[in-house]
Structure formats: C-alpha cells, structure tokens
C-alpha cells in the first residue's frame, strides 16, 4: 500500500525528468554566441568544426616527427561530453516505463556526471580555442559559450529533479560542494608532492608529469636539509613531551578536582591568569633561561618547553574527573586506600577518554608548533622539527628547488597525524565537548 503510494508520488516526475535530459542534449548543439562590435553573431558549428580540424592537424604534424601526448579535442569531446549526456537521456526514458526508485537514482548519478563533463569541456574548449588562435578574445566571458553554460545549469536542474523524485535530501548537493572545497587544498598538496616539474608556482592544477622523485630526494638528499632526521627528532620530542604533559595534566586535574587544600582556589586562579597571556610572549626569556641551563638548541629544551606549561590546560581533564562519582573515592578511602591509590587505581582507569584526548593533543602539538622550535633552534638545521623544517623550505632562498619536496614532506607528516585523528576521533570529540561545558 505504502509502496504504491510512493510510486504514485514519483509518477509526476516521469515527464519532467526526460524532458530536462532531452533539453540538456539539445544544449550541446546550441551555437556558440560570439560578441562582436557589430552585435551578436552565431558561429555555430563552424567554429567548433574549425577547432576540431585545426586540432587534428596540429596533432598530426606534431605526430609526424615527435611523439605527442595531447589528447585530440574531438576525442575528448566525444568521450567526456557525449557519453554521459546521451546515457542520461536513455536513463531518463526508463522512468516512463516504470517508477522504480533505482531508475531515478541512475538518472541523478548520470546527470551529475554530465554536469562534470560540461565543466571539463567548458574549460578545455576555452583553453584549446585560445591556444589555436581561433578566438582572439578570451573565450568564456566575452564570447559566451552559451550552450554549455545552459547545459551545465540544466544538468543541475536534472539532478535536483531526480533527487526530488527519490525524496533524496538536497542537502547532499551542499555537502558534496563543501566536501570538494575542503578536500581541494589537501588534494592540491598531494598532487604537488608528485609533480614532476619543479618550481613553486604553476598556472595549472593538474601536474603535467608525475614522479616519486620528490619523496626519494626528500629522504636521501641530506646535504642541505635532513628530513628523516627532522622526522625522528619530532617523533622523539613528541613521545617525551606527550608522556610528561599527560602526567602533568592528569595529576593537576586530579588534585584540583578531588583534593581540598588551603591554596587550591588561589592556585586555580593563578593558572587561569597565566593562561590569558599570549603563550609565546615570553619566548625570548625562555630562550635565555634555556641558555642559562645550557640546553639551548637541543631536543631536551623542546621537550621541557612543550611540557612545562602543560598544567595550564588541566581544566578539560578536571571537568571530566568532576563527573566521576565521589562516592567511589570515599568508599575506597574507607577501605584504607590512600589518595595516591585512589588516583592510580580508581580515577585513572575510569578516565580512558580523557587520557587519550590528552595524549592525542600533546602528541600532535610538536608536529605543528613552529614558534618555539624556531626561537630555540635558531639555525641549527640538524635539530629542527618537521614543522620548522618544512617552513624553512618555503623561504625565498629555498622555495624554487624545495617546493615540491615541501609538499612531499607535508604529506609524509600529515599521514600519521591524520590517521591518529581519524582513529581517535571519538575521544577527541569527547574531550572537546568537555571543554565546551567549561
């Protein structure tokens, strides 16, 4: 009963979806509109044909002597645009026969594909025509690629209609668009890391040649920068400072959450005030103190600095400890446990999420911090951490040779951190929401 109801509902789309698909197909044959001084002129297929012919000629002459890698424009046009759009039209006929949900699904997927192909063709034809000198002016704005723009919009409408028919939330469109925006810079770094051409700026997104050389050179070429060593440095610092900070944070949080002593409120207020100074305001003083201790330009100094102020971030863990019932502690104390025993045998085993959160944040900090590493290490390249090292690669004197290797290094650093984050996501969120409630 319910099933047929939904079928009935879908019925109203059986006309509109194929119509839109047909219109999209038509758009491909719409003329190019050329905007000239005299007015609008339609160049129609003649321009496109000319473009194909010239392109074929170009490929041929180049192909005579040398090897050419460029794809023929006609081939591109046929495969990229025609196939999805025609497939879309065929798929759009299906709903006329039956109102199955899956048919509409197919339509929406194919429409998405044709949307993509319209985009590709819009950009590639524009580039190609400029390169061939068929359009003296810039193509996309001044000479409207009218049909393709319309096709782009129509395939978007087609997606929406098909989604409406299957009652799929239009929120997916927003989510997909946002995901693309969020992934693009990351993708760009990954692509750059495999780029064969050196240099910092490239006017194109997709590299012309791919290579793993950047990775190999990053690890093997050690005369100027020693990336492997930086990586190990950071790893050691991260492990040490993470152990020390976790101990500091947990014990401070436990003391303020459970023990009551005279200076407790005073201590908490002092920590609150200290937390309000910008963290690196005193970096110069820290540097001189470390120098006084004979520790400057060493990894131990970094460990001390990263973990030294850890107690300031106790409040998230304290908020968590506050939620552990006090009755547990009291029962244990009546049974003869000491405060220390309560801390190690009751509180710690019950606080897995917050411990993991603390470990996670303190482990990742040295991978990302650059200020203290820079102040403490100065120009001692051997003791750099990855963040500082990668940043140095982007300085004016290194950027042209080291740019693609910077991207490779960034990928190498990001992978372990990203994996950690994704695996531990649950705990991270728990810790963060602990901080929200204050």
């Amino acid at each position: 009963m319910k099933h047929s109801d939904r079928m009935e509902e879908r019925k109203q789309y059986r006309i509109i979806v194929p119509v839109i698909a047909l219109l999209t197909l038509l758009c491909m044959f719409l003329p190019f509109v050329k905007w000239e001084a005299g007015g609008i002129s339609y160049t129609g297929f003649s321009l496109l044909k000319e473009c194909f012919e010239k392109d074929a000629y170009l490929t041929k002459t180049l192909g005579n002597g040398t090897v050419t890698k460029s794809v023929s424009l006609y081939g591109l046009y046929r495969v990229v645009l025609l196939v999805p759009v025609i497939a879309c039209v065929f798929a759009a006929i299906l709903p006329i026969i039956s109102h199955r949900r899956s048919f509409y699904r197919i339509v929406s997927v194919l429409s998405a594909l044709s949307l993509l192909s319209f985009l590709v063709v819009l950009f590639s034809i524009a580039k190609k025509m400029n390169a061939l000198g068929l359009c003296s002016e810039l193509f996309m704005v001044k000479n409207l690629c009218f049909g393709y723009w319309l096709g782009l919009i129509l395939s978007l409408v087609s997606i929406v209609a098909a989604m409406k028919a299957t009652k799929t939330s239009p929120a997916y469109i927003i989510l997909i668009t946002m995901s693309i925006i969020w992934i693009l810079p990351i993708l760009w770094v990954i692509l750059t890391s495999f780029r064969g051409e050196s240099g910092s700026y490239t006017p194109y997104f997709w590299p012309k040649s791919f290579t793993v050389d950047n990775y190999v050179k990053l690890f093997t070429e050690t005369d100027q920068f020693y990336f492997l060593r930086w990586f190990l440095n950071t790893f050691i610092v991260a492990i040490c400072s993470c152990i020390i900070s976790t101990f500091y944070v947990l014990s401070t949080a436990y003391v303020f959450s459970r023990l009551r002593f005279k200076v407790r409120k005073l201590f908490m207020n002092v920590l609150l005030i200290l937390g309000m100074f910008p963290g690196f305001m005193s970096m110069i003083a820290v540097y001189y103190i470390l120098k006084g201790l004979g520790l400057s330009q060493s990894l131990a100094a970094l460990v001390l600095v990263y973990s030294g102020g850890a107690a300031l971030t106790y409040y998230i863990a304290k908020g968590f400890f506050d939620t552990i019932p006090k009755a547990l502690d009291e029962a244990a104390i009546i049974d003869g446990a000491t405060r220390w025993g309560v801390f190690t045998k009751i509180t710690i085993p019950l606080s897995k999420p917050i411990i993991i959160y603390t470990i996670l944040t303190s482990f990742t900090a040295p991978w990302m911090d650059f200020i203290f590493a820079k102040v403490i290490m100065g120009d001692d390249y051997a003791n750099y951490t990855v963040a500082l090292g990668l940043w140095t690669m982007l300085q004016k004197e290194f950027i042209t040779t080291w740019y693609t290797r910077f991207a490779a290094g960034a990928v190498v650093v990001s992978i372990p951190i990203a994996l950690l984050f994704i695996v531990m996501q649950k705990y991270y969120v728990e810790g963060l929401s602990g901080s929200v409630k204050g």
Partner: protein
Amino acid sequence: MGRKKQGNVVGKNVSSKNSEKLQNPFKVIKDVFKDGDIVTKLSFLILGFGNLCRGQIVKGMLYLLMECGFIFYLFTFGAAALGKLVSLGTVQQSKVYNETTGIYDVIKGDNSMLCLLYGVTAAVIILLFLCIWYSGIKSALKVQELKNSKKKIPGFVDDIKSLFDQGAHKTLLFLPSMGLLVFTIMPLIFMFLMAFTNFDSDHQPPGNLFTWVGMKNFRTILLSGEKIGKTFWPIFGWTLIWAVFATFLNYIFGMLLAILINKKEIKLKKLWRTIFVLSIAVPLFVSLLAIHLILADSGSLNILLQELGFIDKALPFWTDATWARVTVIIVNLWVGIPHTMLITTGILMNIPSDLYESAKIDGAGPATIFFKITLPYMLFVTTPYLITQFISNINNFNVIYFLSAGAPLTVDYYKGAGKTDLLVTWLYKLTVDNKDYCYAATIGILIFVICSTFSLLTYRRTNSYKNEEGFQ
C-alpha cells in the same frame, strides 16, 4: 585555635569547604611567635631547630640544609644579582686601543639582559625560600603542640607516607608547578619587567645597556602620536573585528553544517564527518601555506581565472588591505567550521526532540526553528566555549602568520607591520624581526589586559564558574 582544628580536618574530610579558606600569613606568623616556646622561636632563625629538638631529625636537617644553601646562594650570587636588578648594569662595553697588538680590544661591560634575568631568578628563589621558611616555622609549632599534648610525633617515614595520602596534592603538584615556574611564570615576570625598560633595537646588549624607563612604553604606544602609536590602534581595531567575525561566523556555519549532517535523511554521516575532520588532521601550517600559495598573485587560482578570461589582472588577495582581510576571514572558515561541527554535533543531539516536533506542528519553518530553538539553546550551553574561542581568536597567531604573514605591509605602520597583522603577530614580528623587546612586552601586557577583561566580564557570570561543585 581555628588553625589547629583545620589541620586535622584537611586529611579526613574530602570535600570540606572549611579547609579551603586561606589565612593571612602574617597573622599566622604572629600566632606562631606568640604560641611558640623558646625552641620554636629559635626556629625563626635556625630553620628546622624545633623539628630537630623534638625528634624529627631528617625533616629538621632538610630544613636546615635548605636554609644553609639559601644563605650560601644569597651571599655568593643572590645579593649581587638583586643589586644589579635595580641598576640593570652600569658599565658599558667599550673598546680600547691596544698599542702592542694594534687592534681595538673589547672590554666587557655589564649585560643588562643577564642582570635582569639573574635578578628575576634571585627574586624567585628568595620567594621560594620564604615559602619554605613559612612552612618550617609552622611545622615547628605543630611539633611543639604535638609534644605538649603527648601525642605521637610522626617520623620521617610517616611524613613520606602522608605525601601519598593527606598531602598527595603536594606530591602531584610538585613537578607540574616546577615546570610552570621555570617555563611560564619566570619568563612572564621577566617579560613583564621588560615592558618597563627601553630594551629596543637601539639598546641591545652586550654592546649597549638598557635601563628602567617606567611607564614610558605604555605612554608611547597608547597615547603618543608617534608611528608606533598610530600602528597600535588600527591593529587593535582590526584584531577585534577579526575576533568577532572569526568567532561568530565559524560558530554559525559550523553549527549549520552539524545540523545538516545530523539530519535523519542524510546517510553516511561518518564519511561526511571524516572528510571535514581531515582538514583538522592535516597540520594547520601545511594547509594554510598551501592556500596562501594558491591565492598568491601568480598562484594557481589567479592564473586560471585569467586564462579563462574572467578577470584581466590578478585579484589582489594579499596585496589589497580589504581583500586580504576578507580573505583571511573566509579562509579561517575553512579552518574553523570542522572544529565547530565536531563540537556541536553531540550537543545538538541533546536538544529535546519534542521541542522540534511541537514547533513543526505549530507550523514553524526551518529558519524559525533555527533562530527560535536551536540557536538560543546552543548559546545557552556553549557560552564558555564562545568566550574561549573569542580569546583564542584574538591570539590566533597561526592563521594570520601562515596565511598572509600580515600582508599587505604598509609604510603607515611601524617597521614591518601589515594591514592584516593581529596584535600577536605584530608582537612576534617586534620580537623576532625587529628585536624591539620592550614594545613587544608592552603589547603582550595589553593583550593580557584585553583578554582578561573580556573573560572576567563574561566568564565569571557563567554557571560553571559560580557553581563549581554543582553537579558533583
């Protein structure tokens, strides 16, 4: 004697409010002096004497040792260091022509920087010793009272044991507070004092001396019409605008994203979240430097748009003040939205669903529901988060420094400061690039004043602060 009672209560009653009251230390000292017998009174001079006389040998010896060590330090280094703290050095480094070798010999003068550092260290050590001394005389009185009332006097082993029980806070807090003292408090005092000197690029030790100048730096920055003053106020204004936009836009859009993903009909919720979490997981400086390069004048985006004919010349992402400011705010959305999304997801699920249902029955649209139910509820729960976010945005070094590095730079501003510089990035530039430490320290103090005013005004009013033990 209230104090005696409290001493016992500390160990036994875990949540006693009574034990948290802080006494006036001077009154305690007076009381100890009044109640103490001759041995206790002698402990004022010879620390640990009371403990030694009454059987707590090890404890007494430790106190005595610390006093000896302190006196030794004071006479060898401490006093001199304190003396130099007042003058910050008097002998300037100079060069004298040496006729036999034919070159100028450098005659070492005072290093004001080290004078200040050693002075601060001496002051901290003296303060620490005063605390030890205070606990020493209190312990002398305690042991006297125990003796008089014929109770068992705890030996050294008992003391150690109590450090894991009644005194566990001392054990647990010792290392963290040492870390704080050396790497946070001492440097802060040091920088704090630096704000009252003229330690700028013209007064760099060891070549030159610097000295105390009182409130002059504050006057120059806040009140004078000098270039540095003309830099401070615009940067301060921009910092506030930035903090407001960065906080609230991230908050609203992040929440909308969370609502979108939380919708019933959305499938693969985990996948969507993971996509956005990915941008948190990639180290911030990597993604920000990448975005900086993409948006540069000859970067990918500009060249692509130019080739396709949308624009004639490069969009001035980092070269025009307004463009740069809008760009950093928008890119910051890229950084901040996933964070807010993660945080608000859980809280959004806690909103009672009957609220939504009744709103729907009354015919409220999605916008009305958002502004009348979701937003007020979220604001109620997450006010502390918003405050901390606001403050961390005022101090948001990473986003600005890696993204625009303060660009576009302008000659209207003090050396090297740019139109998108926040107070913190300016502070960093003043310290690292210009070596104007005294101005940097002054700005650090001003940032602290701004942040603490904001938090005190708002944070103290929140429930979580007022009612700390509320839900225990």
